[in-house]
């Protein structure tokens, strides 16, 4: 009988080998995801400032920020920004996907071009939008003036509501390809014979969409909305580049306010509390993603 080395014998055990194989992934997850998250939570429970670890103060930072009208405003706009942007991206992304699912001349090029807003560096596209939304030099205003549709430049960023809505439009523009490409993949996975059967039964286009397309796109919709909502809720670059949270804090969101308090102002503990506070919303969204994936 040939004796096998003890190590090799142990590696033959599925339990040992299984754990061993997930170690690299676990290290990466713990180091890059869990550690920063736990550090953020810990900092939010301390009086840490830049260069000073501070002391444990329990939930005092949370009490402070929940009493702060700027934080409440930022929380409100973060949620509003996310809901509006997700609704816009969902409707327009689905429409774009339905369009690009058709075979027409140049459809391959169109699909590639559609991805441009998604692949362009966020800061670069934000700077381009900053120019497009400029109160004096906006190309949008210039075009509308030439078409005699407006009489003076549009003040996109100079008033609270116009600034809020402008940022939502920019976010929709940027995130649209993510939805469109996701829906396009979903549409192409729907068996054609379902539509043929529906046609034989006399269903029109709208009925086919309601009874076949939309129900079969629901799982991917859940995933797209949940992931995109997490990205949108934690959006920083677009807003910081275009408005810096202004005018009059009208476009502050969790991330910009956390950055302002923690980095510029040096209040790491309070900044961490602001950054950690939307975590409950994100956990709920993540729950829906996991559930949807399991169901699928």
């Amino acid at each position, binding site marked *: 009988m040939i004796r096998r080395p003890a190590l090799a014998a142990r590696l033959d055990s599925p339990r040992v080998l299984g754990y061993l194989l997930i170690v690299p992934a676990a290290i990466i997850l713990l180091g890059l995801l869990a550690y920063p998250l736990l550090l953020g939570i810990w900092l939010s429970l301390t009086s840490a*400032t*830049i*260069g*000073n670890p501070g002391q444990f103060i329990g939930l005092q930072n949370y009490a*402070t920020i929940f009493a*702060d*009208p*700027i934080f409440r405003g930022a929380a409100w706009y973060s949620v509003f920004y996310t809901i509006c942007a997700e609704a816009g991206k969902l409707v327009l992304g689905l429409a774009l996907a339905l369009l690009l699912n058709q075979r027409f001349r140049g459809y391959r090029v169109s699909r590639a071009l559609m991805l441009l807003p998604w692949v362009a560096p966020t800061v670069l596209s934000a700077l381009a939008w*900053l120019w497009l*939304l*400029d*109160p*004096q*030099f906006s190309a949008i205003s210039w075009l509308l003036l030439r078409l005699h549709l407006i009489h*003076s*430049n549009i*003040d*996109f*960023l*100079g*008033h*609270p509501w116009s*600034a809020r809505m402008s940022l939502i439009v920019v976010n929709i523009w940027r995130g649209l390809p993510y939805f469109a490409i996701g829906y396009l993949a979903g549409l192409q996975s729907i068996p054609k014979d379902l539509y043929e059967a529906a046609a034989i039964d006399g269903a029109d286009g709208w009925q086919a969409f309601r009874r076949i397309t939309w129900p079969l796109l629901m799982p991917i919709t859940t995933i797209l909305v949940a992931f995109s909502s997490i990205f949108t809720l934690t959006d920083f670059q677009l807003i910081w580049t275009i*408005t*810096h*949270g*202004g*005018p*009059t*804090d009208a476009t502050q969101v969790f991330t910009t306010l956390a*950055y*302002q308090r923690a*980095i*510029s*102002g*040096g*209040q*790491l503990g*309070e900044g961490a509390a602001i950054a950690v506070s939307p975590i409950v919303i994100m956990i709920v969204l993540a729950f829906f993603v996991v559930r949807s994936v399991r169901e699928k």
Partner: protein
Amino acid sequence: MRHIDRRDFLVSSAAGIGAAALAGSVPVTAFAAESPFKPEKGASLQLLRWTAFVKSDATIWDENTKKFTDATGVPVTIQNLTWNDVTPKAALAAQVGSGPDIVMGWNDDPFVYPDKLIEMTDLVEYMGKAHGGYYDNARSYCYDQDVKRWVSFPIGCTGNAVNYRKSWAKEAGFSEFPKDLDGMLKLARGLKKNGHPTGFALGHAVGDANSWTHWILWGFGGKQANPDNSIAINSGETSNALDYARQLYETMIDGVAGWDDSSNNKAFAAGLIGMTMNGISIWYAEKTADPALFPDFANATPPYGPVKTHTISNNFTSAYVFKYSKYPNAAKEYLRFMLDSPQADRWVTEMLGYVTPALRGYSDLPIWTSNPNITPYRDALAGAKYDGFNGKPGKAAAQALDEFVLVDMFADVCVNKLANKDAMRKAEAKLTAIYKRA
């Protein structure tokens, strides 16, 4: 006690070496040998500074740095960052204990992490004696009253003045720029009537929005805090300042609440506005952009308000050295060299006074009087006030500036049409929270 100014120093310094160096006849190494700051053996330095708006600023700074390296053998690596990015980058360095040896930062930044910075008192005193002392802003932004030491070395400010078009002012009935705020409002109304609105930033523009709103507030006697740091923003003086701002806002071009720090430069260059407030770069840029029209662009000292004193607000820059640096002496010697004669003379002269030095001795450089449009920038620091005036300079004032509390108060009145009392109460609540947590 006899006042020692920069010229006295140059004449009386050992063997006239300083004066000879100014004339360029003695190698810099000879003058450097007199310095009390001896670079460590094998030293090398990293400097983080803000990106120059005026090309000659960076060119001469780099040339002077090379001279320093030639003279001392200490290589210096310079990293340039946009203005707004210096503060977070420096904060990160303070937090992790690694990064540039020297940071050329803004306003109250050193007060956010004074314990991480080396004491600069010896360098500050040495240079003060050599160059006629400092303007008051130097102490406000570099001497930390909590830790009771100089934590940063004052360099100067990118001074602010009012920028306007002479021909348009003349059309409005003003052959000279008004000396008081009432006169300026009349000019602004005249400009607006003739199709040349004014433009003062009211968005979250770090430099431009803070500068003019602070100037108007202080001009009417308003103040953010009292010397004991109790909040003083809710006052009749502040209300008067807000009334004035509301009237000035009526003369402004649309969209100023969405402006960033580059917006007024673009609008002024394009001829869309007839008056704004900025550093000298806005004027200097026209020299190459439109030489034919350049003589029509002019700068004026910001008019006085009812308090009848200078109430200007500038972007103050200073250099601080982190304790983690292995070469603190080399860093101090570098800063001494760069702000000493003849290096600083050339630096300030070539950039047409873009930076007004905090050392008073440099106010007699010929560049300041070579053109009447440069002279207002010479005086930018004379009597200038500081963030958080009349409270204690420090963390709270820095955070209030970072959060645009005063800018937003003015924007609330001008753009959001809030009543003065409501805008003041809102600002008061924000300031109370900031001063409490700082």
